[in-house]
Structures are given as structure tokens and as C-alpha cells.
């Protein structure tokens, strides 16, 4: 094969058309490139960069060369290594396996994306046979690290199947030598000491929803039989205490909580973050609402614009950084994951912001009846009557068959940023990802149209906030520490 020789610039100036993507930011330009390197330049310098008028002796020349922005001065091996590390998800199979143990739920959350059925609904529980077959299916993934996440509905409503699946998965892991992580997402209202003990002894990590102070949480998360917030707080404290008193027999993971931002949250960023800090939670994931499931029908009431979310996100990050300066440990999860890509060139396992997205190749959702979906969001669309994201069934399909399904292939192709008109030239491309399910629900096609896509605007807003903070030395120093935590994950 013919190998091109590196370009030598005889004029000792940077060559025109730098290898860069760019965005206007804070009166200057943010430059990024395919390897994930970034740099800031003033508008004046940007004009020089673009026209190739930066002389070799200029300090900016050295800075941009080192980051791979100057054609002819690129360390191709080093940059390729960075690209490979940041895109290592391309080399593994699905690692996240979401098992929907039941569609039943005792909550009626305003924004519910899980398409939950009422607590008394029939024939919406996963049978033991389906659960065990789903575990078998998960272990056919070539990924050496498997995470099985038990979800619902409310998974504790199908406790017998949950315990059997946990034990079976542990046995499978021991036999297959794969690394296995088990996770439970529960609202905690049905948690008991006995159940908690089982989960701890089997090293199941625990996650719940916490939307902030009691009035806000309970407004979003309606629980007719009691106080949802009180239940969540009680068991967060319980698991925090257990985490603090480790035992030699098994590892006790720190429990975590998920925040879903509704319109009601927008004016209350400090109270929400204070609630997390007061409970000793060290991570808060400021997750935007998506117009999928019940939220779609209630969007006028509980939804917001991408600009409103970005403003909220910016205020949250300001406050979190202020708390960090006061010595309080609290990190924002989305920023942490993006920083992992921006600063460390590593893939943090954030399936929503990958290229291609995690649908089918990074995760699979197992419905209660054994149907397989590209992701949990795809399953919700199925529950609404449109099975476009269904990729098979655990009893009838193989992994290869599921990944060869039209839905899986279409999601991989349509979420490839190289084939998305706006994304392919976006400064945030090295760190971002599109969601075919969102595109389909909001814009009627898997590809979407990024020019008028709310998710795109929202992600651009979030990246804008993160990069603005990175420009300030003090904030950057704090945010760098957030990624150090990820290393010990």
C-alpha cells in the first residue's frame, strides 16, 4: 500500500486549513480535532490559524502543533492512540444489559419514561424462565465486563425473579470468568431489611431517584400510598451507613441517586444540590427530561426548552464548583463523564454520547416478555405500540441475529456522526453522540435534523458550559479532580 510522506511546509508557516473543528465561545474560538484535543484561540489568532499565517517561532504554533492542529506537524501515532482509546467501545460488544423485571409500578411519576403499568396489572412480570434466559443471553456478549441492571416499573415488585436472576448471574460469571456488575434501580418504597441484606451480600449496587427536597420530589414522583421522598431518603441513609461500615465478606458499594429535571426544578438548583450534599451523596447527575413516554404527553406542563435547561445546568455547575471550593465533595456526573473524554481521552461508558450510540452495540434492553430492544428508550417506544426498535427475543434470537436486525443496524448507521451533516463539522463531535430514539420520537426519523433538534441544542449548551469553566484555571483544577475519581471506579 502506498503510504503518504508527512507534509513538510517549506515556508515554515502553519499550513492552511488546519485539522480542526471550531465553535465561537466567550469572544474567541474553541478548536477541537478528531483525536479529542482542544485549544482556545482569540478571534485574531483564529484568523491567522485559518489562513496558515502562524510562523514556526510563534508560541501558538508550538501549542497547536502539540495538540495536532497543524497539518504536517502531526504526531499521527500519538493522535491515533488517543482516538483509539476514546473510541474503545468500538471493540467490545454490549456491556449493559437492562432487565425489565416488571412493568408494574406503585408510583405514577409525571415524567415516567419506563412506560409503567399499574401495581395490579397482570401479565407484565418477567417470568423466572425469561429472566434466566436473559442472563444467558447477556453472557453471550463478547464484552469481558457485563453489567446487568434490574429495572422496571418497580423491580422489587418481582422480588422472587430478581433474587433468582442475581444468583444465577453470579454463577454464570464465575464459570465464564467475565467481570460482572449487578445494579438495581428502585424507588425504595418496598425495600425491607431482608431485601437490603440480600442485595448487599450479593454485591448489587443500589440506585434510586431523588429529585430534590420533599415537596419537589413528591410533586414529580407521585406515590398514592405514602411519601416517596421519605422512603428514598430513609434507604439512602441506610445504604450510606452500610457503605461506611464495610465487612470482610463482601464489598458494599456506595448507593447513588438520579435526578430528573422537570420544569418545577428549574428555579431550585441550590436546594436540589444541598439535598444531595446533606445525604452524603458525592455525585449528582443533572439529567434532562426527554419527550418520551408519559413526559411526551405532559411536555407543555413539565418540559422546558434546551436554553432553559442550559441556564439551569450552568447555575448548578457554578454552585457545585462553589461548594468544591469550600471543601465539600460533590461532582456533576454528566460533566465528569464529558471531562473524561475531553481531558483524559477516555471513553467513560456514557452510552448516550457515543459515536455510534450505545443502541444494541453497547446495551440491550430485555422486556418482561423476553423481547429485546436496542435500549430502554426503544423499549418505551415499543410499549406505545411501535416496535421499530425491537431487535429480537431471548428465546428465538442469538446475539448475532439481534445485532444483524434492521433496527440495530439502522441505529448504528444513523447515530454515526461522520454521516450526520451538522455533527460531522461540529466542535463537540469528538465528545458527543446522537440518539436515534429521540430523533424518531421528536422529528420522525432516526437521523433527525440537527439544525432544529432540541437534544442537539441541549448538548451544545452543556458543552458550552463545561468548556467555559475549563477556561478558568481555578475551575479547571477542581474539575480535573472529578475525573481522578473515575479512575478508581
Amino acid at each position, binding site marked *: 500500500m502506498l503510504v503518504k510522506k508527512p507534509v513538510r511546509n517549506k515556508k515554515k508557516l502553519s499550513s492552511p486549513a488546519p485539522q480542526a473543528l471550531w465553535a465561537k465561545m466567550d469572544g474567541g474560538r474553541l478548536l477541537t480535532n478528531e483525536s479529542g484535543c482542544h485549544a482556545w484561540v482569540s478571534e485574531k489568532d483564529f484568523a491567522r490559524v485559518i489562513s496558515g499565517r502562524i510562523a514556526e517561532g510563534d508560541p501558538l504554533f508550538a501549542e497547536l502543533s502539540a495538540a495536532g492542529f497543524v497539518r504536517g506537524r502531526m504526531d499521527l501515532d500519538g493522535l491515533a492512540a488517543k482516538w483509539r482509546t476514546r473510541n474503545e467501545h468500538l471493540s467490545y460488544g454490549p456491556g449493559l444489559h437492562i432487565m425489565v423485571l416488571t412493568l408494574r409500578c406503585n408510583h405514577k411519576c409525571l415524567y415516567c419514561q419506563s412506560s409503567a403499568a399499574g401495581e395490579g396489572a397482570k401479565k407484565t412480570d418477567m417470568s423466572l424462565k425469561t429472566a434466566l434466559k436473559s442472563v444467558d443471553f447477556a453472557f453471550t456478549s463478547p464484552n469481558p465486563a457485563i453489567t446487568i441492571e434490574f429495572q422496571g416499573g418497580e423491580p422489587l415488585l418481582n422480588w422472587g425473579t430478581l433474587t433468582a436472576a442475581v444468583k444465577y448471574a453470579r454463577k454464570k460469571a464465575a464459570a465464564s470468568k467475565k467481570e460482572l456488575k449487578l445494579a438495581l434501580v428502585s424507588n425504595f418504597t418496598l425495600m425491607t431489611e431482608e431485601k437490603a441484606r440480600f442485595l448487599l451480600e450479593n454485591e448489587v449496587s443500589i440506585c434510586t431517584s431523588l429529585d430534590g427536597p420533599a415537596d419537589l420530589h413528591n410533586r414529580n414522583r407521585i406515590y398514592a400510598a405514602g411519601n416517596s421522598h421519605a422512603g428514598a431518603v430513609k434507604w439512602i441513609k441506610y445504604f450510606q451507613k452500610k457503605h461506611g461500615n464495610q465487612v470482610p465478606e463482601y464489598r458494599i458499594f456506595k448507593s447513588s441517586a438520579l435526578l430528573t429535571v422537570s420544569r418545577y426544578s428549574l428555579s431550585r438548583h441550590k436546594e436540589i444540590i444541598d439535598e444531595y450534599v446533606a445525604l452524603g451523596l458525592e455525585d449528582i447527575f443533572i439529567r434532562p427530561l426527554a419527550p418520551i413516554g408519559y413526559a411526551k404527553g405532559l411536555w407543555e406542563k413539565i418540559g422546558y426548552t434546551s436554553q432553559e435547561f442550559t441556564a439551569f445546568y450552568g447555575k448548578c455547575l457554578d454552585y457545585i464548583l462553589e461548594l468544591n471550593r469550600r471543601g465539600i465533595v460533590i461532582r456533576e456526573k454528566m460533566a465528569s463523564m464529558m471531562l473524561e473524554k475531553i481531558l483524559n481521552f477516555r471513553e467513560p461508558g456514557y452510552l448516550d454520547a457515543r459515536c455510534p450510540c450505545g443502541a444494541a452495540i453497547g446495551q440491550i434492553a430485555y422486556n418482561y416478555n423476553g423481547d429485546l430492544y436496542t435500549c430502554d428508550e426503544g423499549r418505551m417506544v415499543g410499549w406505545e405500540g411501535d416496535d421499530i426498535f425491537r431487535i429480537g427475543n431471548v428465546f428465538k434470537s442469538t446475539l448475532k441475529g439481534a*445485532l444483524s436486525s434492521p433496527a*440495530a443496524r439502522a441505529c448504528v448507521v444513523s447515530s454515526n456522526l461522520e454521516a450526520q*451533516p451538522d455533527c460531522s463539522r461540529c466542535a463537540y463531535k469528538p465528545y458527543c453522540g446522537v440518539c436515534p430514539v429521540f430523533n424518531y420520537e421528536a422529528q*420522525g426519523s432516526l*437521523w433527525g435534523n440537527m439544525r432544529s433538534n432540541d437534544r442537539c441544542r441541549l448538548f451544545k449548551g452543556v458543552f458550552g458550559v463545561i468548556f467555559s469553566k475549563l477556561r478558568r484555571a481555578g475551575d479547571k483544577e477542581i474539575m480535573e479532580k472529578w475525573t481522578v475519581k473515575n479512575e478508581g471506579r
Partner: protein
Amino acid sequence: MKDVKSGKELIFETAVYSKEAVELAAYVFSGSCGVKVLPGKSATRVLLDGAADPESLAGKLANEALNQQCRIDLAKKNSRIAGIIVTKALLSACGEKTQAKNKGK
């Protein structure tokens, strides 16, 4: 874009818009109203019929046609790298090894 008896008519010049781009755009809106694509030599015409807000829908369809055309144009330039990424992702997920023909460079 012009008003016709039953709704709106959009005209896409074939010099800019391929028939494929217009058809893809029309498909996106086929659930919202009646959409009829009429290919012609110099232009592809699209008839929208029975839309609740024909003006707005016609604008959205025009945007979508532009988006689809840009995507088709981009695919001509980027199809190789896009294909490599998709193939690598799907084959790896199936557990099949992909072999780099150019030794990883």
C-alpha cells in the same frame, strides 16, 4: 411553495435536490398528512394534502429535504470512514475480529 386547491405544493429543483432526498423527506411527514411526490425532469413536486397547519408543515418538509440532501452529499465524501466505524462497531459487538488492512494507520 404555492397554494393549491387541496393544500400546498413544494417544488424542489433537481439541480439541487435529488429525488431520493425529496422522497426521504416526504416519508418523514407521511404520518402527518397526505404527501404525494411527483418526479419531473427539472423539478420534483411535492403535494401536501390535509395538514392541520400546511404552511408550517411545508416549511418543515423543505428543511427536511435540505437536511436529507446534505446527508447524501456528505455520504459521498465520508462514506469510507463512516463505513469503517459502523463495520467495526457491529462486527466487534458480534464477537468477530476486524482486521485492519492498513496496520492500524
